[in-house]
Every structure is written in C-alpha cells, then in structure tokens.
C-alpha cells in the first residue's frame, strides 16, 4: 500500500520572489527511489521506476542538466544525506555570484510516521528537513511519494500505522514552505500495475508533460483530480491530494518547460476521450489523460515511436495509432487511418483498481490432507508374509493417514497459476509376530513424500472470493522404509515419478487469508520389493488448508 504521497513544495528559504524563473536559474535535482520496505513493510513494485521517470522528466523538460541530477536508488540514510550535502558548495557558489538556483528533491518509497523507510533503516523527517533547509538554494521543491506498509491488512478498515501526512507537514513546514499530499491522514494510496507507477506520480508526470500547465498549482490540480478519479472505485479507497503553500512572492512556479521539448504531440480539438501514450515495445505508459473536445492539448515527449490509444467514452473500441515523433517537429494526432482495436485490459485503468488476480503475486497454501491407503500386490505380499497392517504410525488408521501438504505458487494469468508442491503421500506401518511365545517381532514401515511442479487452471467467482480450480503436475517421489527385526534395522530410500491431479476451490473471506479445499488423486509408484512389485503410494486424498497470498501494488 502506497500511503500518502507527498509534495512538499517550495521550501523557499528566505526568497521565492519573483517565482517566475530567472534566466540565470540553475536547476539541480536529487531523485531517490527505494522499493525496499522495513520491518512489516512489503516490497514496492514501482518506486524505482517512478524515480527514473521523474529523473527523465527533469532532464528532458525541467532544465536540469544531467550532471546536476543525482539519481539515488535503494540508498541508505547516509547516502541521501551525503547527496544533499554534496550540493551545498555548488548552491553556495551560485548564491555568492547572485545567481538563482532550484533544487528538486523527489523521494518514492516507504515511510513511517516521522521518517522515510530506506529498507530496514530510517531517515527521520527532522533530519531531512534540517538538511534541506540548510541548503542555500533560492527555491527548493521537495516531492515525497511515500508508502507505508502494514496498512493493507484488508480492504475494509485499513489504516495507516501512523499519521504520516499530518506529522510530515508539521515537521517540514516552515516559512515559505508548501506541502502537497496525495491523501489525507486516514486514506491509503496505491500503486497501479496497469500504469506501472503510483497513481499520483503518474498523473503528476503526465500533467508536467503538458496535460496541465506546468506550474506548481496546475500540476497539483491535475494530479489531484486524476488521482481521485482513478482511486475512487478501488478497493483501497480514494486519495485526496492536498497542497499547502507558504510561498513568498508572486506568480507561478514552473516545474517543467514544454517549450524545451524534444518532440511534441498535439491532440487536436476533435480528439475526445481517454488518451494513452505508450511505448510500442515495452508497453510503458508515458501519459494517460482525458481529453475534452474543443481544446488543443500538447504533450511534450522524447522523440521516437509511440502507440497512441484513443477511447471515446465507454466505447468498447479504441483507436490504436502508431506515431513517430521527430525532433523539433510538432506532430498532430490524426485518428483517420489508425487501427480499430479491442480494448486492452490496461486501458481500463481509469477508476478501476487492478484486478485481484493481478494483485496476487504469490500464494502459500499449507494444510493437511487425509490420504486413503492404497492396497495393491505389494501390500498383498506383505500380508502373505504374515504382516499385519497397523495403518498410519500416527493415529493407527488403516484407512489412510493425515498428511501435511504445502504449496507455493504465483499467478501467470487470471486463469493460470504455477505452483510447487510438497506433500507427504503416505505413512504406513506393518507388524509381524510369528510365534506366540517368543518376543521377536518384525516391523516394516515407510513414509513417502513428493515434490512436484503443477499448473493450476482457475475460474474466479464473486470478485475473486471463490475460485474453483483444476490442477495437474508432475514431480519426484521419495520414500524411506525401515525393516526392523530384533535389534537390527535396515533403512533404504527409494525414488520414483509422481503424477498428481486435483480439483478444488479457494475461498477468501478475508483479503489475504483464505481457505483451500481440494480432492486429489496421485499416482506415485515409488516403492518396490524384491519380487518386482511396485507400490503406488498415491491414491485419493481430501485436503483442507489455509491460504495466504501476497499482493501486488498495495501495501
């Protein structure tokens, strides 16, 4: 669950007027990304990607030379502090020469109430504020897109562990400080697997590419509206970005300059509907916006090839346009000649949360099954040789045995999963005593196990709460048997193939934790005797277990 993305803007340390950028303004940026979570926080998916996108944007449109930008990924607190400290002499030199300077500090990652979480380490907001305020920049823009783990304990009642929003505003606000947060203290925010980004950063970047005016207020409004719209119908809940500013001076605070764009895509007046701009090969979404008719909208993009998808209203069809943007040559989109294509799944992003199957990255199923004993010639031979079936060593059931089962897997598709399974197939004990008046007894027992790779086809129902499934797999079976007579014991291991099949259903009454019930049949000819008789330790089984699943893009 990405919690409370923040924009802390305009740490105007002493001066922010005039806010219209001076010609001699020197731009610097520190862009930090951290997917790692601390204790109790799950790993993020897109924090590093968001950091790279912001860095690319600042270089491309933010007049930030590459050597003025520090892209810091998965850092420790010390590395972040060193990156900030390293700017001090440069900014001081500009100030000494009477030149203006701007610093953009962007962070995407986890956070707790009063600190950024950098893996297991934390960077206190106090320390960050002090370090940033100590810089002699004329304008400092801080963007904190922070996540807080442990909040996504369920769709209902999910709460941030602490009020990051309020505390961070309190901690970072100062004279000339503006704070923009993407959610209120009680709200959660989220990443989107469809956008491969957090909602907030995605819309902020889209706005700064031209969907909005490129100044602070307009970028905020654009990000606010689109983030709210996108998250309104999600399970996690809506996000309301907030902006608090205490900027001295007048006028706008431009963050990007589309006039500097390498290439420009114009969406003419006639274009109407949802527009997605993505790279054709990788499918990376660079911009997604709602285009109203009657206005021209210009997007600043790097030159290259793009696929532009235009969906009008709720139409099931979309126009898929292949466009090549040339350097310094504005390109007006014309949907005449574009292919009409089926709606790809990721275009349904607006307002929809990712489907649950996309969120479920992995699952763990642990439980027990009752495995019915399977008799064959191998067992008949034991009985011919006067052994008595004592059933399972635990429980003494001749009908079968209770056995542990474990499965770990992940989703390949809405209807397909791949999993590894570990099962105990059987545990049986045989006993023989040939003479009434002599204590000597012979025991023969075995335990067999299997490890297998299985494919599972599933059919989700009721919003993923129920999912009947069918499973088929192959693997390796191994059995250890012991032959004991008097004080001697002979143990040996045997191996054989295993083919398994199962039908079952998963039920998730709670979001993460559920149940799995299945009926299985295994074929496991593992054991053999000196009479060349094989024993199939498989057979019918009934299993019940707990199911835990890891989720994508919600922490």
């Amino acid at each position, binding site marked *: 669950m990405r919690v409370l993305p923040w924009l802390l803007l305009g740490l105007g340390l002493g001066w922010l007027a005039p806010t219209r950028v001076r010609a001699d303004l020197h731009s610097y940026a520190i862009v930090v990304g951290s997917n790692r979570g601390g204790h109790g926080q799950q790993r993020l998916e897109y924090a590093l990607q968001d950091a790279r996108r912001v860095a690319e944007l600042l270089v491309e449109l933010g007049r930030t030379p590459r050597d003025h930008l520090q892209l810091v990924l998965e850092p420790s607190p010390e590395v972040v502090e060193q990156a900030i400290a390293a700017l001090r002499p440069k900014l001081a030199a500009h100030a000494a020469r009477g030149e203006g300077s701007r610093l953009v500090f962007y962070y995407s990652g986890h956070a707790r109430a009063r600190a950024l979480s950098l893996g297991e380490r934390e960077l206190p907001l106090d320390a960050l504020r002090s370090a940033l305020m100590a810089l002699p920049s004329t304008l400092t823009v801080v963007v904190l897109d922070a996540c807080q783990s442990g909040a996504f304990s369920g769709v209902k009642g999910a709460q941030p562990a602490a009020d990051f929003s309020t505390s961070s505003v309190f901690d970072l606000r100062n004279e000339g400080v503006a704070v923009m947060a993407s959610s209120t203290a009680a709200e959660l925010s989220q990443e989107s697997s469809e956008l491969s980004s957090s909602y907030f950063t995605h819309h902020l970047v889209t706005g700064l590419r031209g969907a909005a005016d490129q100044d602070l207020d307009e970028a905020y409004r654009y990000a606010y509206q689109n983030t709210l719209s996108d998250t309104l119908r999600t399970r996690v809940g809506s996000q309301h970005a907030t902006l608090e500013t205490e900027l001295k001076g007048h006028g706008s605070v431009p963050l990007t300059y589309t006039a500097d764009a390498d290439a420009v895509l114009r969406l003419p007046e006639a274009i109407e509907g949802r527009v997605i701009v993505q790279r054709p090969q990788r499918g990376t979404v660079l911009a997604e916006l709602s285009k109203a008719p009657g206005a021209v909208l210009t997007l600043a993009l790097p030159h290259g090839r793009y696929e532009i998808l235009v969906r009008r209203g709720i139409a099931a069809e979309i126009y898929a346009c292949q466009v090549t943007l040339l350097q310094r040559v504005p390109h007006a989109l014309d949907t005449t000649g574009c292919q009409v294509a089926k709606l790809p799944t990721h275009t349904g992003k607006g307002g929809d949360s990712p489907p649950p199957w996309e969120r479920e990255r992995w699952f763990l199923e642990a439980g027990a099954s009752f495995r019915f004993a399977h008799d064959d010639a191998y067992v008949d*031979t*034991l009985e*011919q*040789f*006067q052994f*008595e079936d*004592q*059933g399972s*060593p*635990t*429980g*003494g059931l001749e009908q079968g045995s209770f056995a542990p089962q474990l499965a770990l897997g992940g989703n390949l598709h809405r209807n397909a999963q791949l999993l590894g399974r570990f099962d105990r197939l059987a545990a049986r*004990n045989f*006993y023989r*005593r*040939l*003479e*009434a*008046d*002599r*204590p*000597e*007894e*012979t*025991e*023969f027992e075995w335990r067999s196990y299997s490890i297998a790779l299985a494919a599972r086809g599933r059919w989700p129902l009721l919003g993923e709460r129920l999912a009947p499934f069918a499973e088929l797999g192959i693997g390796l079976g191994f059995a250890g048997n012991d*032959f004991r*007579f*008097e*004080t*001697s014991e*002979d143990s040996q291991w045997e191996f054989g193939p295993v083919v398994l099949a199962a039908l079952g259903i998963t039920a998730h009454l709670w979001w993460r934790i559920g149940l799995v019930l299945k009926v299985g049949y295994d074929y496991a000819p593992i054991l053999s*005797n*000196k*009479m060349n*008789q094989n024993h199939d330790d498989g057979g019918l089984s009934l299993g019940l277990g707990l199911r835990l699943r890891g989720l994508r893009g919600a922490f």
Partner: protein
Amino acid sequence: MSHSPRPPANAAARRAFTASLRGLALRGLLLLPATAGCASGGPDSAEPSNPGFVFWCGATPCNWEVDEGSVHKVSTWHRHDYAVSFDGPDRTRISQFRDTRFVGCLHFDVTAKIDKDATLTLGVDFNNDGTIDLSQLQPELPWRNVPFTIPTPTAYQGLRYSLLKQGAGTAQVAHVLVSTLDDCPNFPLQLKAGSPCADESVCESGRCLDERCAGDEAVSQPTKSE
C-alpha cells in the same frame, strides 16, 4: 483357531508394548544366539519353533533338522526377510519334532514358492516313529500362502513335521505356521500300520497288536489260521 497374540490396536499402546518387548530382547541380547536354537513355542506346543525361518544356526534354520539334501537361506520380498530354499538335486528334507499331546485339529499356513519341476510335501509323523501319517502335497506356486487343516489321532506321543522337496527344481518355504483347533471335521485321524497304539480305536486297521497298529495282513492272518 488359536494364533500368535496380536499387539494392542492402539498405536501408542502398541509402541509401548513393542518397546517393552524390544527392551527384553535387548537385555537378553547376549543370550539370544544361545537360546534361538532351543527356544520353542512351549514344551508341549504343537506350533513349530522358528516357523518363519528367521533364525539361522549356521547354514541351517534353527530348530529344524536337515534330514536329506541341503538347504540355504534366501531373501524373499525384502533382502532381510528370509525363506529356506530346498535346492538339492532330488530329495531334500527338513523336519522338526514337537513333544505335544494336543488332540484336535492342526491348521497350517504354508507360504511357499515351488518350481514347476519340483514338488513339496508337508508330512506329519505322529508318535515320531518314522511313519508319515498324513501328508499334503503343495501345488506349484509363485509365492503363495496355502492354508489347510488336518486332524490328530485321539492319542499320540509327540509329532514330527517334515518338509520334503522332490524333483530337480527348487522350492522355497517362508513360513510353516501351525495353529490348533479344538473342534474340527474328520477327527480323529486313524494311524497307519506300525504306529504305536494303546487300543484299536486309533488304528486305521482297527487292530492294535503289541501296542502297534496292525496292517491289513494282520487282520487276515487270523482268518487263515482259523
């Protein structure tokens, strides 16, 4: 049918039972080699000792005597579960005497594997006088258990079980389990001529002369003398 005692059905109890037996076995570990050859199912039990050929005294199964030919130990379904193999070129016989007076029926469970060109006969010599009073020919078998029941005479003094293999092939026997039945059909067994007898009721011929069952000749001779 009486049979070997079953261990307790409950697993925990059975394990305790097993452990106690194993403890006894461990405590008597040093004595076992010496006792294995002479222990039996009780002094007057009809059940043979070492019926599963699990104990071996050198090249022969303990408690059994090799009367003819030679035998050796072979593995059966498991490398440590043994049978006795009758592998002489023609006749091979092992036997065991039991000093029992049990009257009733004896139930046999014989688990054996017999080649096509071999026969195996289980014989019972009541009174241990060298006369096989009753024999059961085992059919050609691929490891199979064959049960059968025979009556005893009304009176006898001990018996000898014998296993006789004939033919060029091999026979293997894993168990000769014997249990006793108090009530059985075809009781009693009439003894053959020459068998010891106390009265004529035990003899097949109905005649007991000089404490021996007389044959048919003994019956007819007096007629001729008359």
